[in-house]
């Protein structure tokens, strides 16, 4: 009798933590979904469900770069390489700065690439904690 009650208790608490992690993962996906490449979202959620409870703190502390900000920077000061500096691609930023935005070509190419590059960068940041 005692054993079964303990077992059910354990099961209940287990279920409770499951629901909690589910909620946390969903919450994270809702608030941060826009920061990641859309084809990776399902994969990220699965990974989040598996992680240790202790890791949640460090994941919620992570700072992600906003793709919209990157695009605005790219449109306004792209030829100075500021968009690349914002993403932490310092080498590419210096390259863009020294070549007048790659003679204007690279700058225009980056208008279309920068949001994807930003999402990839965020995924990299998250993966550093997840794995």
């Amino acid at each position, binding site marked *: 009798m005692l054993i079964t009650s303990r077992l059910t208790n354990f099961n209940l608490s287990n279920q409770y933590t499951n629901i909690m992690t589910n909620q946390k993962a969903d919450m994270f996906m809702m608030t941060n979904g826009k920061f990641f490449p859309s084809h990776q979202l399902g994969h990220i959620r699965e990974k989040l469900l598996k992680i240790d409870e202790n890791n949640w703190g460090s994941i919620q502390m992570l700072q992600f770069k906003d793709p919209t900000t990157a695009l605005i920077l790219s449109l306004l000061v792209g*030829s*100075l390489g500021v968009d690349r500096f914002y993403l*932490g*691609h*310092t*080498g*590419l930023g*210096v*390259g863009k*700065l*020294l*070549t*007048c*935005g*790659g*003679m*204007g070509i690279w*700058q225009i190419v980056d208008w279309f690439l920068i949001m994807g590059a930003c999402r990839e960068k965020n995924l990299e940041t998250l993966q550093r904690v997840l794995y």
Partner: protein
Amino acid sequence: MHTTQKKTYIILTIICLLGYSWLGYNLVITTKPESSAKTVCVIKHTTGIPCPSCGSTRSVISLINGDFSKALYINPLGFLIAVIMILLPFWIITDLVNKKNTLFKFYKKIEIILQKKIIAIPLILIIIINWIWNIIKEL
């Protein structure tokens, strides 16, 4: 990790090739009389003021002609570009031949160094001062 390394080498090679062809085109243009080199700078075309690296082509060309003080006057960044353009092809080729990634490691190290605030802020200030000087000189 491996793909970023490959990408870095491809981008650096493309930059190098484009840089040399642009330089060659400008060298041919400047030797002909009564023809001025065209600018492709987006900032200069849209706003009319020069960007921080405007004039670097002219600076490198005066370096090739041996006129160091003129190069320094037009744009000091020309020296940096000249050093990079001389070093880069040799470094890429030696890395390719030896199948090593010394250039990539160096590139990553430089990136980390440049991201430190103590180094980044003075460099940004230098670039801004150079920009103001460019605007005053009306390049």
